């Protein structure tokens, strides 16, 4: 068995979900977006969550990240169970333990790149660790553009700023929702490389939702969701292998 792959009882799991169900709507129109999903995200690993449109991959990420509440099931992040937390506690958890990178609109347009990176810490009223800050800024390669506003940055640069923001507070886990969905190949490569480095060099845990096999291939592990269930959980090797996991034959 691949040491990186699914040992559901792995004690090193930083995020652990059991029996997740998420229903939208009621009665006839009800849709089950997640259907009894249990998953662990091991510490220091890069997990890609894939699946066709409507497979529930985004819902899974939202639920895991505490942005949405499951209809049933439990989630534990870094030892904290999300279920009993109220909105304020969930907000604090997001601020202190989670990092987010979205597809669009990652940055506040009124703040400079640097201010965007520091935003969660500032919100918490904490000072940044200067060493980590400069390491990160080096890593995202934006040294001279830090005082620019998002509108003055390219899409790739914006995503790298978003990643730096997600990493700055050393979160338990970084959730990335289609971070390359809006980028050209070169920029995508840079963004993925940065996420990869975060895992390899900083020991960060990353979960990334994507529909791009190329992107998923840079992860350590690929989860495939179809109709709200995990249908495949394999180590990621390359784009072709990931592509094959997505084929209907592989799924069924």
């Amino acid at each position, binding site marked *: 068995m691949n040491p990186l792959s699914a040992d559901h009882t792995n004690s090193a799991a930083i995020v652990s979900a059991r029996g997740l169900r998420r229903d939208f709507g009621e009665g006839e129109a009800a849709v089950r977006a997640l259907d009894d999903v249990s998953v662990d995200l091991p510490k220091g690993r890069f997990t890609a969550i894939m699946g066709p449109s409507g497979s529930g991959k985004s819902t899974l990420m939202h639920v895991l990240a505490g942005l949405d509440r499951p209809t049933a099931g439990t989630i534990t992040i870094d030892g904290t169970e999300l279920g009993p937390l109220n909105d304020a506690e969930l907000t604090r958890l997001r*601020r202190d333990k989670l990092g987010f990178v979205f597809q669009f609109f990652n940055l506040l347009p009124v703040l400079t790149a640097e201010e965007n990176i520091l935003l969660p810490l500032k919100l918490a009223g904490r000072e940044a660790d200067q060493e980590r800050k400069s390491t990160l800024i080096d890593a995202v390669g934006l040294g001279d553009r830090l005082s620019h506003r998002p509108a003055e940055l390219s899409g790739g640069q914006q995503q790298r700023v978003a990643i730096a923001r997600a990493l700055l507070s050393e979160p338990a886990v970084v959730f990335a929702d289609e971070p390359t969905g809006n980028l050209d190949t070169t920029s995508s490569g840079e963004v993925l490389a940065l996420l990869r480095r975060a895992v390899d060099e900083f020991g960060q845990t990353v979960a990334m939702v994507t529909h791009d096999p190329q992107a998923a291939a840079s992860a350590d592990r690929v989860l495939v969701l179809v109709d709200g269930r995990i249908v495949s959980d394999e180590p990621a090797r390359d784009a072709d292998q990931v592509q094959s996991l997505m084929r209907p034959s592989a799924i069924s």
Partner: protein
Amino acid sequence: MSAVALRNLAARKLRTLLTSLAIVLGVMMVAGTYILTDTIDSSFERIFTQSNQGVDAVVKTKQAVETDDGTVPPFDASVLHRVERSPGVAVAAGVIADPQVSIIDSDGEPIGGMGAPSFGFSTGPERFDPLTYVEGGPPQADAEIVIDKATADAEGFELGDAIEVAGKAEASEYELAGIATLGEVDSFGGATLALLTLPEAQRITGKRGQFDQITIAADEQTTPEQLTASLSDSLPKTVQAETGEEDVQSQREDIGVFLGFLQTALLVFAGVALFVAAFLIFNTFSITVAQRTREFAMLRTLGAGRRQIIAAVVLEALVIGLLASVLGLAAGIGFSPAVGALFGGVGIDLPTSGTIIELRTVIVSLVIGTAIAVLSALLPALRATRVPPVQGLREGAVLETPRERGRRNVAGVVLSALGLAAMLLGLFGVLSPGELWLGIGAIAVFIGVALLSPRLVTPMASVIGRPLERLRGIPGRIARENAIRNPGRTAVTAAALMIGLALVSFVAIFASGLRSSIEGAIDKTIVGDLFIANSDGFSDIPVGVTDAVAEIDGVATVSPTRYTQNEVEGTEGGGYLTLVDPETAPDVLTLDWEQGSQEVLGELGASEAVIDEKWGTDNGFSVGDEFTARTVSGEELELTVSGTFTDTTDYIGDYAASDANAAAYGEERNATSVLVNLAAGSDAAAVRSEIEAAVGERFPTIETQDQQQLKDSIGEQLNTLLGVVYALLFLAVIVSLFGIVNTLALSIHERTRELGLLRAVGTSRSQVRRIVRYEAVITALIGAVLGLALGVVFAVVVSRPLADEGFVLSIPVPTLIALLALAVLAGVLAAIGPARRASRLDVLQALSYE
């Protein structure tokens, strides 16, 4: 296209509501003003008609001089015989109708509010008696009295009670013989009514051997017109005859002058609220139209013409305007008594029975509200549709080019400058009417500054926002940035508040200047130790007070002054003057002499006058010149100027003359104030209480004050007036608060995704609320700072012409600071709803919001 417009309204109910509310408030004030003044007018008409029941003609002194209250002096009782001998007269009765006969309450104070007359009437033949006796009947003896039911109820007077009444003679007690109403009318709006026998009424009003009017019924063969015509032929030239009908109308006209003033004043406040509402609508439509640029572009690519789009936007405004106007009209019905109550609260009682809604009220309200909505929406609509469709489809289409911005700034500067110029020209009488040009100028300045304000927003927000950022960290920072990311929007929102605050601070500064000028003038001019006047602050007191005070121990000098009206040949204006007693005046009054001295005042002859230097300059009178004064009784006096002085507060009026002419001026029984100097070594407080006790018992309408008390009571009156003005301006400020709410709500709507992101990365709900609240506070403070600055400018400008008369501008810093604090509070209040909404956004929905 009209379907699109209406759908838009339905889809954005909250915004539609907020936008409408602004117009509702403005129209409410317009409608309320008309309803209130129409109602008062009709109430007075009913009172006058009721009192003239059965009267075919009245004879009164011919009005020789236009006075503020329209009252005329009494005439000699012998006229009655000539009337009785005239053909066509069936019954004629001499009548006393005096507006200054006070009923005294159990505390020894005269009953009645500020401005409401306290009528004293004499009884006459039953056919002329307009009263309905609820209890008892008319006075049968000189010791009996009838009073109105409202007063009896309010004071708990019952038949047989002893009622004290004060007029120009000493106060007397009467036995209450009846309680009456005037037909259906049970309220005279704070006025009191005392009915006495004719001899007693003549005695108490100091009109022995005189009548205020003669009331006449024609015989059966004579019409009122014929009667009046024949009377006019046979009567002396000093009196005139009018039909009963004409008399009601002329009384109504006298009230009409006051009502017209009230109406104009209230409409000005309504105009301010509507002006602010126009800003709000303009801003709302600018934002929503900008938000819908893509939608419009899409519609245009589908083949909609530019006109169709404009028509759709205008239709939206039309519906809002019309709807809001209807609501405003309805609200005006409720607002009218509220304003009546506001005036009543400060002692100005006006009769309001029923609610009179004229067609004119309905039309004006609907037209004004709708027109303002449509006009305010037109510019944004034109602007939005100028964007070529293809450009509009792209995200972030810019609606204003740098060139337009440049033109806007130039227009702002030009308008502000022209506005200030118009104000000054109006003030200095170059353009007339001055008030109108002052108003037009002020509006131009407001619009000019509003055009310039987008430029001012960024630096101001930086300055105002910096401490917030320092103290409140990142929410403060984001709020500040949000405030300046769309300077035009913040600017117009702030400008709406600016208008209200500019006017409030202008009034505050001006009043403060007025107050300190008056106090300064009192210090300089009224050098007497004690000041005796009517306790209502302005009515006459009996001149008999003078002799009564002179008898008190410790009083050295007593000097009566009489402030009255006349007409000076070749001049315009109110024609105010003061009659003084030359022998004593120099001891209690010190004039600020230009030419002449206190000695001139002391030796003022019966045909001499000392004049206000400014009045003299305006009319070409200087020392040695003669002028002709026509008095209320129709006499003409030739007066020679023997000195000039500066009259800072118009305490004296146009000129001062000797009270040797008091009778000619129709003032022999009256004094406006009596000034007292104490003998050396006597205790002011002791003498004051002695006067209050001994003289006050005989003349209960007086109040004795030392200089400080006089200043305080003038300050109080000024504050009361200010209170009313603030209350009316407050509505404009409320309208501008809706503006802040609306702008915030629209901005939050635009920034939904940002807010979702903020929440996702760990911004707490209270932090989101803070971001919104701080933006509101910054916007409000920008408006407040601009408003206060303009208020100071206006105060400086408006006080310029008064500077010659010694008006000293003083800036009430604590008041201005309080206004800033209020603006912050206003911002916080305005932010409550939008902040709540922003913090309640569902994070996931917000993130995926397009």
